[in-house]
C-alpha cells in the first residue's frame, strides 16, 4: 500500500483534522463522532442538513460541508456507514427548531444506522426527515428489495436542498425538492482499477490490464459485469445507453451533466469523456445546461468514472446556480 499515512486506523481522524485546519475557522471538528460541522450552525432559522455515509469517498461528504451544502457530516470508517451513536450525537448537536434533514444513500448499513438513530432522536423530541438517494442504474433488478444504490447523484441532491435551505425552505419543502432531484437523476460507472482501504492494506479486487468493471459502486464492491477494456467512445455509449432510457431523458430535455472521477483517473480523461458525452447527448436533442467535471464522490484512488445526468427545470437550475462555499475550492 502506497499512501501518505501514519497509523492506518488514524487515517479518518487525521484527514478530518486537516479539513478543519484548512477551513480557517469555518468548520469545527468533533473527533468523538468523526464529525465535521459548520461553525455557524446549528441555527433555529435553518433546517440542519446532515449526511453520514462511509469515508473513502472524499470530497464527499466531509469536504462539502459549508454554506449552501451540508451543515454536518459524520462518516464512519472507510466504506462503512457511521455507527448509530454518531448519527444520534450529530443530530442532537445540530438540532434546530426547523428540524433536521438526514440525506442517506440507499445502502442497508447507512439506512439501518440512520433509522435507529432517528428513532432514538425522535424519542427525545427531535424532528427529523430522511431523504433516500438511489441514482445508480447499474442496479437493475427491481426484485432485490435493497433497491438502487446512491452514488454520484448525491451531490446534486445536496446542492439543491443546501441552496433551498439557505433561502429559508422548511423541512417539507426540502423533502419535496430533494425527492424531485432524486426522481430526476441517474448515474452509472466504470472502474479500471481497484482500490486499497488503509486498514486492509491490499487492493479490494484484482483486475487484469485489459479489463474493466462495468456498473461499479463506490465501495470497491464489484459491478455487474467484467468486460474487455474498450475505447472511451464505446465506454460513453455503454453508460449513456444504460442511463438515458432509464428516466428516460428525451429530446428537448435540459440536463446537468456530471463526469465524476473515482479517484485515480486524471481530470484530463474526465474532460475527454465529458466531450464525448456532451456531443452524444446533443445528437439526441438533450441540451447540457451545466457541466460538472471532476471528483465528486470517489472510491479512494480507484481509476474509473461515473456519468451522472440530472434533468433540470427552472427551480432546479436556480438551486444549482446558487452560491455555495465549501472546503474543496481551488482559490
Amino acid at each position, binding site marked *: 500500500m502506497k499512501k501518505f499515512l501514519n497509523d492506518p486506523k488514524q487515517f479518518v481522524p487525521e484527514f478530518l483534522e486537516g479539513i478543519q485546519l484548512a477551513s480557517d475557522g469555518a468548520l469545527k471538528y468533533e473527533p468523538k463522532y468523526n464529525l465535521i460541522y459548520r461553525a455557524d450552525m446549528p441555527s433555529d432559522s435553518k433546517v440542519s442538513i446532515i449526511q453520514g455515509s462511509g469515508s473513502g469517498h472524499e470530497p464527499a461528504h466531509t469536504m462539502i460541508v459549508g454554506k449552501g451544502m451540508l451543515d454536518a457530516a459524520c462518516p464512519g470508517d472507510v466504506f*462503512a456507514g*457511521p455507527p*448509530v451513536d454518531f448519527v444520534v450525537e450529530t443530530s442532537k448537536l445540530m438540532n434546530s427548531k426547523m428540524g433536521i434533514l438526514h440525506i442517506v444513500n440507499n445502502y*442497508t448499513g447507512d439506512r439501518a444506522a440512520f433509522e435507529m438513530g432517528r428513532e432514538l432522536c425522535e424519542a427525545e423530541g427531535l424532528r427529523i426527515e430522511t431523504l433516500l438517494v438511489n441514482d445508480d442504474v447499474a442496479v437493475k433488478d427491481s426484485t432485490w428489495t*435493497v433497491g438502487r444504490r446512491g452514488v454520484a447523484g448525491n451531490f446534486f441532491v445536496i446542492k439543491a436542498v443546501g441552496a433551498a435551505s439557505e433561502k429559508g425552505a422548511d423541512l417539507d419543502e426540502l423533502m419535496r425538492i430533494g425527492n424531485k432531484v432524486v426522481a430526476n437523476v441517474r448515474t452509472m460507472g466504470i472502474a479500471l482499477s481497484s482500490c486499497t482501504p488503509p486498514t*486492509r492494506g491490499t487492493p479490494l479486487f484484482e483486475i487484469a490490464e485489459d479489463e474493466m468493471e462495468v456498473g461499479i459502486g463506490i465501495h470497491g*464492491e464489484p*459491478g*455487474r459485469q467484467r468486460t474487455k477494456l474498450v475505447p472511451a467512445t464505446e465506454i460513453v455509449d455503454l453508460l449513456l445507453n444504460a442511463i438515458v432510457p432509464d428516466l428516460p431523458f428525451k429530446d428537448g430535455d435540459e440536463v446537468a451533466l456530471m463526469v465524476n472521477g473515482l479517484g485515480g483517473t486524471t481530470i484530463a480523461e474526465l474532460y475527454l469523456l465529458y466531450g464525448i458525452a456532451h456531443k452524444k447527448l446533443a445528437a439526441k436533442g438533450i441540451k447540457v445546461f451545466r457541466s460538472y467535471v471532476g471528483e465528486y464522490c470517489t472510491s479512494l484512488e480507484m481509476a474509473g468514472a461515473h456519468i451522472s445526468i440530472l434533468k433540470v427545470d427552472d427551480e432546479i437550475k436556480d438551486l444549482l446556480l446558487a452560491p455555495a462555499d465549501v472546503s474543496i475550492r481551488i482559490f
Partner: protein
Amino acid sequence: MAQASIDDLDLVLMTMAKTIVDNADYFAHLDSIVGDGDFGYSLRNGWEVVLSDYDGFDHSSAGALLKKVGLTLTSKVGGVSGPIWGTAFLRGGVAAGDRTELAPEDVIAILRAAITGIMARGGASLGEKTLLDALVPATDSLEAAIGDPALQGDHGAAALQRAADVAVKAAEETKGMLAMRGRAAYTGERSIGSVDAGATAIGVILQAISAAWREKHGK
C-alpha cells in the same frame, strides 16, 4: 444440557470478542470478494472495546450484560454490522432479563430474540445469503439437542459442538446462494460461488465458543 451462569456468559462473550479480533483480516477478506471488505474491521472496532471495557460492564444479570454489549456494538460498529449485531444483542438482552442463571430454554429464547431482531432490522429472510443462514440452523440444532438424550451429561459440550458444526456446514452452503441483501446483492449472479462473510464468521465464532466450553466444562 445444563444451566449457564454469568461466569459462563463471560466465557462465551470473551471468546467471541477474541475470536473476532483475531479473525478481523480474514473476515474482511471474505467480505471483499463480493462486498466492500470492511466487515471484519467494522466488527473489530466494537469488540475491541467490549474486550477492553468488559470488566467495567454491569454484571448483575445476563440481560444487563448482553444489553451493554449491544449498546457498545451499536455505538462503535459501522456499516450493516453495527445495527445488525447491536440489535441482536439488545434484543437478546431483553429476552434474558434479570436472570443470573440461564436454563437451556432461556439460551434458545435469547437466540430466537436476537434472530427476530436481525430480521426486523435488516429485512432479510433465510436463504438470502446472510449470517442468518448460519445462525438459524445452529440455533435449531441447539434447540433439538435439549430433548436429545445422546447429547446430555457433558454440560452441553456435545450439543454446542454439533451446533457449531452445523453452522460451519451451513456457512459453506451459502456458496450456492444468490445474495439478496447487503452490498453483495449488487453483484447479482456473481455473488454465487463464494461464501457469505457473516455466515462464515458465525461458524468460526461458534467453533471457538464450543472449544472454550469443552475446555471449561467437558469431561
